């Protein structure tokens, strides 16, 4: 065999660690926002855009993106949408209970490529969760970045996540925040229309670094806008979602052509995947 180490010397990648829920919030009827702390007291060290496998014994394990920045101390956030077996069970949990975590896993945003540059983040729907991690990071280390523009679109106003954050961002000078909904309601005073309708509202330079995270259909339209703006493909970063079972590059479910979303991503430079027929 061509590998030297003995299995007993290596940590078992399938063994989770216990994390305790220190706070919960329910931003929408479909989502629950958890703030967690590792039960052993050790901090969780990760990069924005990385993921965890979160599990409840008997229910199963699911991939989730970090929804907070590593710059915030000792705790980390996850936001879970009620979808199926595991997510429904997780969303019944309350403060004091445990979630079992493996991670951090995967490749997050390459911050070195964003530092010192203008940054545009385009987040659609639940795609705000993994990008919130990056948003918080940029806000916390604001001086490391140049201009910071954020687009956020949801289906309707009720789908909006992180309402407190939104209030803060609307008021903040640190971020140029634009939001839209596909369909408004009587209380909605803001922009109505798909996320690409926000582009004319602001001047985006060709040197801007762009991060996209949202449903698959959104990608295609946003990329078309960015092409028009002359933004290079290697400066566009996308956060992809695929079925996942192990999130450590073994189970095969998340493969896009020859890439594994869980270890090669979930964040990819668009230039690295544009040749992959199965990517977008």
């Amino acid at each position, binding site marked *: 065999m061509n590998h030297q180490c003995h299995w007993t010397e290596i940590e078992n990648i399938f063994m989770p660690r216990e994390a305790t829920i220190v706070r919960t919030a329910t931003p929408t009827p479909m989502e629950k926002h958890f703030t967690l702390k590792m039960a052993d007291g050790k901090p969780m060290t990760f990069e924005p855009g990385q993921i965890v496998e979160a599990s409840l014994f008997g229910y199963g394990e699911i991939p989730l993106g970090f929804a907070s920045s590593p710059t915030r101390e000792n705790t980390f956030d996850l936001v879970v949408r009620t979808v199926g077996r595991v997510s429904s069970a997780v969303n019944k949990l309350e403060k004091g209970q445990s979630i*079992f975590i493996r991670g951090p896993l995967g490749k997050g945003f390459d911050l070195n490529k964003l530092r010192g540059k203008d940054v545009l983040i385009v987040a659609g729907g639940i795609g705000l969760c993994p990008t919130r991690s990056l948003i918080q990071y940029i806000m916390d280390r604001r001086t490391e970045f140049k201009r910071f523009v954020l687009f956020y679109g949801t289906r309707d106003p009720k789908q909006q996540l992180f309402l407190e954050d939104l209030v803060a961002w609307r008021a903040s000078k640190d971020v140029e925040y634009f939001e839209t909904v596909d369909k408004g309601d009587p209380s909605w005073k803001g922009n109505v229309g798909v996320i690409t309708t926000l582009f004319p509202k602001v001047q985006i330079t060709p040197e801007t670094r762009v991060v996209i995270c949202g449903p698959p259909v959104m990608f295609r339209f946003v990329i078309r806008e960015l092409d028009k703006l002359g933004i290079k493909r290697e400066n566009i970063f996308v956060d992809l979602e695929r079925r996942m079972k192990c999130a450590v590059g073994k189970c095969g479910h998340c493969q896009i052509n020859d890439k594994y979303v869980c270890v090669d991503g979930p964040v990819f430079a668009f230039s690295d995947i544009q040749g992959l027929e199965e990517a977008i």
Partner: protein
Amino acid sequence: MTALFIKDKEFHDFVAALVGATPVYAPVAKRSLFAFERLVSADALRLDYDVTILPPKKLFFPPAQELLKFTGGKFTASVHPEEKVLFGVHFYDVKAIDQTDQLFAEKNYDVNYMAHRQATTIVASNIQKVSRRAFFGTVGQEVHPKGHDAYLTKIGTGYVFETFTPKGEALTKHGNFEPATDTQRAEVVKVNAAVLEQCPEKLTHKSAEIATKVRQAFKNEELWRECAVDCFSCGTCNTVCPTCYCFDVQDTWNVDQKSGSRTRYWDACLTESFATISAGGGHVENFREERGERFRHRIMRKASYLNPKLGGPACVGCGRCSSQCTADIADPVRIINKIMAL
């Protein structure tokens, strides 16, 4: 490394001694076919097998492998490897094991596989009978098997037993071996080379050319759709493949409804919902919805995607998928030769 010889008559005793000393898994008859099973007596050993139904991967990566046990919020890993000898593996299966060794060890090291693998001593054996769909003679010739601890070759009146590792060497104490003569060693080389010519199926091109051209055929939707018209999405071509290792993970409770386990099961990328995700609100998205798309993914993975990493194709030419696909459409040789002829 040593090369030893053992006479036919004494070979039986050697196997019997081995079986008495340690668990031995080896090819045995299973109805009209063969399977690697725990050897209960030397008489059951069938080194004249052509190919087994399942590859030996099942010993390191079983069809259902428990990852952990839990009781409430307490949990323990379920890694309990058994020291054993895997006896009589053909070289194409050793090549496949080399691949899974690499893939399970790289990046995130998978102890669930590696523990079983490291507890195993592999004795390869020459191919006495070539299976009717084999094409190991023309696939990935640039890659050579390396994971075995010893190699057994049947010649004339006995067997030559070559050892490559201390684990392989250790087995020789169970038998009445004598040093192999130069003639016998030459015979080994001849026997093992000859078998490569006997494959009933042959690829027309070298792996590197194949990797490029097959990859280029990705967008030939018509080709893939046609190839897969009769596909049942049954995943047999995956599950019987020695280089496939996709899995699903499921949690279940025991009857006490408190304790239970997390288990991984062989999965197959040809099955319909392999790449399906739930998007909430009852919506699902299947990233490979068409039979042709799933069919294509397997061929791409075998012939092209992994080549840079493995130094050759992720196919070893055992012919298991060819012979076990009930629709008889899975044969990589036919598909690849067809693409190469386009």
